[in-house]
């Protein structure tokens, strides 16, 4: 069965290429290219008036390279030949004498699929809701199928750099201003395509048209500035060679003719396959897309059918949960203390979504669906209507217990999910007569954007409660990990270590903004002190204090964190260390609250990064030892998707695996001693692994 089927309409003499590759989404492998070459050749032989390229799959037009095929027995030579072949494939199509039109109907064109549109096609007719982008850097690669060179020629250099470096996938509307993409209603796609072909006989492909002016042209100086900014972003952490390659490729493309720039791309691309970070990213992609959805095994027949739910507490988290549920067609009842608060919450969601619609990021219909499924209320009696109640009130045990009692008074059969970030389920359920109904659903903020849901199984949680939490989590689009009960479960506990270690480093003589800068260099998305500032201080202080009370030997709250809080140094952005284009913004106001610890050596950059990275790894391994974490896949998924563990390392288990269990254990002991950091004492899990003779190959 060819992956590109060729049909010639003898009357119009317009050929159709129907892309339909093996697998659930269309992807580019050797077979695809063979069939695309054949179809193109046939179109030449048939002397067609034009080609229309469509997909045989409902949601996927063409979504990039077949990574599994690439990773199987990949040699540098084979990768080079394959990529070169793809270039030739697109160039041949582009240089064909007949017009080539792609038609997308609410489908995705990603990576190589988007490159086919940008380079091989003369025109793209699509509905507004198709999505396109070159997200290769998110799998540890860069758009080497011509993407770095041709996107610029369609959208301009600045936009192209932004899209590629940030792996942006955008709705088709975003490209409506370009001369390549035309938005039209689904019903008209076919006739418009035929019209376009008839009216553009003899068209020269935009990539090869010498008369064509690249949009948004800027001076060399300005372009260089854009490149430099991209480099800064790409190289701040040296372990993301794919970002660096993307920037290099785009910079080279400014100076080189297309053919030479493409040859340069071949070299850059092949070299990436030697990098462990590229392998980490590709593996993590498979972990999230292929293993992730199957990782937690629950019996869906045990899950309660949830067609509606209630969220108690209409803060940022509560609103986020209500919004994602409503978007997936689950009616969401948003409950808060009074009418004003609930009304304000619903209005806030409305306003936020309206912003997305007006910026063109969301179609209006998507917002309408959310708002139609949303309702505010103050009436706990309404809980009788819902099978699932998600509690998002302030992190206070007696308060949560009272809410649980009120919920169970109103509807004892409802499953009660707590969105606590630290409190154990068994303590929340301690006073309940039906503790088996209580389960944890720990979301991450901002809920609509963060992909992870940590479901917590209390010792008394029923099979049905757990199955329901997991099933609903998946239904609203989250990657679910299932962990056992304990203070801070897995993610909050491990994240608290990161923040604590950041403050401990500042107390040991590293300037606070340097701590955060070195964290960014290590690959973290946000420095630990900025975490305190960005979350407003209160949350970190309360969570940290709670964790300290449960793990006094290892998780004592750093004195400085206490001082900051007690001095009223709380509120959004205190301290505020963030990266502008070149530098770390220093917020020196924090210095008076840092309590220095004398008599210890000042940690150097390697030590700072190891304390932050290995500190998190160690806590993750403690969670393994304590039976909180069920397996290493959950460890890596949770750490990267939930708490910002550097994605270029795949997660704590892979990072330890790459450095070696014995070496990591020795390093932790060394750092714990040298800097008096008892939290770095290696978890018992390291000893077990050493005893089992396992130093690497954890994941």
């Amino acid at each position, binding site marked *: 069965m060819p992956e590109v089927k060729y049909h010639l309409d003898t009357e119009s003499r317009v050929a159709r290429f129907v892309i339909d590759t093996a697998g659930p989404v269309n992807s580019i492998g050797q077979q695809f290219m063979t069939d695309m070459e054949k179809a193109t050749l046939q179109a030449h032989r048939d002397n067609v008036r034009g080609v229309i390229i469509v997909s045989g799959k409902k949601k996927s037009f063409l979504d990039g390279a077949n990574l599994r095929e690439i990773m199987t027995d990949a040699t540098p030579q084979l990768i080079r030949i394959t990529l070169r072949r793809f270039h030739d494939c697109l160039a041949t199509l582009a240089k064909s004498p007949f017009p080539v039109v792609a038609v997308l109907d609410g489908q995705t064109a990603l990576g190589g699929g988007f490159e086919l549109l940008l380079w091989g096609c003369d025109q793209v007719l699509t509905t507004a809701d198709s999505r396109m982008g070159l997200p290769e850097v998110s799998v540890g690669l860069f758009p080497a199928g011509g993407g770095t060179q041709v996107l610029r020629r369609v959208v301009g250099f600045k936009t192209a750099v932004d899209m590629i470096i940030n792996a942006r996938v955008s709705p088709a509307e975003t490209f409506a201003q370009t001369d390549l993409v035309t938005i039209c209603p689904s019903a008209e796609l076919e006739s418009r395509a035929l019209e376009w072909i008839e009216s553009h006989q003899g068209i020269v492909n935009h990539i090869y048209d010498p008369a064509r002016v690249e949009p948004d042209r800027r001076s060399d100086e300005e372009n260089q500035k854009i490149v430099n900014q991209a480099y800064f972003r790409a190289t701040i952490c040296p372990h993301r060679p794919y970002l660096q390659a993307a920037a290099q490729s785009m910079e080279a493309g400014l100076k080189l003719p297309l053919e030479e720039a493409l040859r340069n791309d071949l070299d850059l691309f092949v070299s990436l396959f030697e990098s462990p970070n590229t392998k980490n990213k590709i593996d993590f992609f498979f972990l999230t897309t292929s293993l992730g959805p199957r990782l937690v095994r629950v019996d869906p027949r045990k899950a309660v059918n949830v067609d509606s739910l209630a969220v108690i507490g209409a803060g940022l988290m509560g609103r986020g949960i209500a919004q994602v549920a409503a978007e997936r067609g689950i009616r969401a009842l948003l409950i808060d203390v009074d009418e004003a608060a609930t009304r304000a919450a619903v209005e806030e969601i409305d306003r936020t979504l309206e912003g997305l619609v007006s910026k063109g990021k969301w179609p209006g219909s998507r917002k309408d669906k959310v708002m139609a499924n949303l309702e505010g209320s103050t009436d706990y009696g309404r809980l009788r209507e819902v099978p699932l109640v998600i509690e998002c009130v302030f992190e206070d045990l007696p308060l949560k217990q009272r809410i649980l009692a009120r919920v169970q008074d109103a509807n004892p059969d409802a499953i009660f999910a707590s969105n606590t970030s630290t409190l154990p389920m068994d303590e929340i359920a301690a006073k309940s007569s039906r503790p088996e109904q209580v389960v944890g659903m720990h979301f991450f903020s901002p809920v609509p954007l963060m992909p992870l849901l940590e479901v917590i199984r209390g010792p008394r949680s029923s099979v049905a409660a757990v199955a329901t939490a997991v099933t609903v989590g998946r239904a609203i689009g989250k990657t679910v990990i299932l962990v056992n009960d304990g203070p801070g479960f897995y993610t909050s506990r491990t994240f608290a270590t990161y923040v604590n270690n950041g403050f401990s480093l500042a107390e040991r003589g590293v300037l606070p903004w340097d701590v955060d800068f070195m964290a960014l260099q290590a690959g973290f998305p946000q420095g630990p002190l900025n975490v305190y500032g960005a979350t407003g201080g209160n949350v970190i202080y309360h969570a940290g204090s709670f964790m300290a009370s449960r793990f006094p030997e290892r998780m004592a709250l750093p004195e400085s964190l206490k001082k900051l809080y007690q001095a009223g140094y709380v509120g959004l952005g205190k301290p505020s260390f963030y990266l502008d284009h070149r530098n770390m913004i220093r917020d020196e106001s924090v210095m008076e609250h840092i309590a220095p610890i004398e008599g210890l050596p000042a940690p150097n950059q390697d030590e700072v990064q190891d304390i932050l990275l290995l500190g998190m790894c160690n806590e993750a391994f403690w969670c393994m030892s304590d039976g909180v974490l069920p397996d290493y896949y959950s460890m890596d998924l949770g750490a990267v998707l939930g708490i910002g563990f550097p994605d270029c390392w795949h997660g704590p288990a892979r990072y330890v695996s790459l450095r070696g269990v014995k070496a990591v254990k020795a390093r932790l002991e060394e750092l714990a001693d040298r800097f008096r950091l008892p939290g770095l004492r290696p978890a018992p899990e390291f000893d077990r692994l050493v005893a089992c003779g*396992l130093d690497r190959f954890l994941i």
Partner: protein
Amino acid sequence: MPEQCVIVSAKRTPFGRYLGSLSEMEPLDVAAHAGRAALTAPGKDLSAEIDQIFVGNCIPSCFETGSVTGRQIGLKLGVDRFTITVDTACCSPLTALRLALWGLRLGELSSALVIGVEAMSRVPHMSRQLRNGVRIGEVKLTDQIYPIGYPGYNPVSVDASDGAEKYEIPKRMLDAWAMGSHRKWAQAQAEGKFADELAPIMATKKGNTFLFAGDESPRPDSTLAAIEQLPAVFGAKSTTAGNAPGLNDGASAVVIMTESRARSLGLEPLGTIVEMAGETDMPYGISWIPALTIRKVLSKVGLELDQIDLIEINEAFAAMPLVSAKILADGDKDVWHGLLQKTNVNGGAIAIGHPVGASGLRIMMTMMYELRRRGGGLGVAAICGGLTQGEAAIVRA
């Protein structure tokens, strides 16, 4: 004081995976290959020097005629000496070695060839109905290796997992031990360590004849995370395909002699069998019987565990080395971890494979060769067998 008994030769075939390279080979030929390799390894043919042959095997139905298997092998080897074929399940080849040791100590023999052989790929399905003729209705065909168990008792996989639970060994540690087994094997393989014991064999499968030169089961490129995902089998709590060995084919052989006989033939002993012992416990105790057997054999000669440099505990399941070492450590975590670090240092049956009637001699020789590489020392090798019998051997090299 009876004379010292020494090992003058020890060889084995590479172990094939289930339905793998050895699966179409006649197990008698595979056993004879291992025997011939052992007889010729010292650089001269010892066929004429053998006083008696002892053969251990666990599942006799893998042979065309599972009777006097030893005699059938002996004739293939051209050694017309009395043979004893013995079955103590997985203990068989070490029991065969112990019988030979008795003979040597009694002075009835001064040399013996000991062979262990198994061909799990060749075990036929069995029916007891056909003999009388079949009437209308179904014919029941039982599979003797799925699961491995005994009428009236749990499958051994269940006993192993119950043992792990009893001794509070979590599944993730069983899995870590399993992946460790593959990695230790990979390391040893990379260092060429198995060259000492392996006797590559010309194998035929699906009409192709080829040199089968290395163990076929190890999966060193897997990961602990992948092993963790495998589901439990046969109703066990923690036993999975990942923390158990496969069903394998292969044979092992050693030649033992009294020290004086070896000297008279000009043979350099590879190691000395210091002592052997067999032991039993309640029938579900297979995961801890290696510990009891090791204790027994050590006490017979007044040795303490801390005088032992290397330990082999057959990985019938990951539970066996972990449970047994924990018992030997009296539950002390640090002692336990210390013992584990000198247990199965080149990987175990989970990686290499467990042809049940051949593994006993394999663990002994793997340990002996490793002791020699380390400049000598004392080692103890122990294996569990069906319905909880154990065999153990102390070897000095």
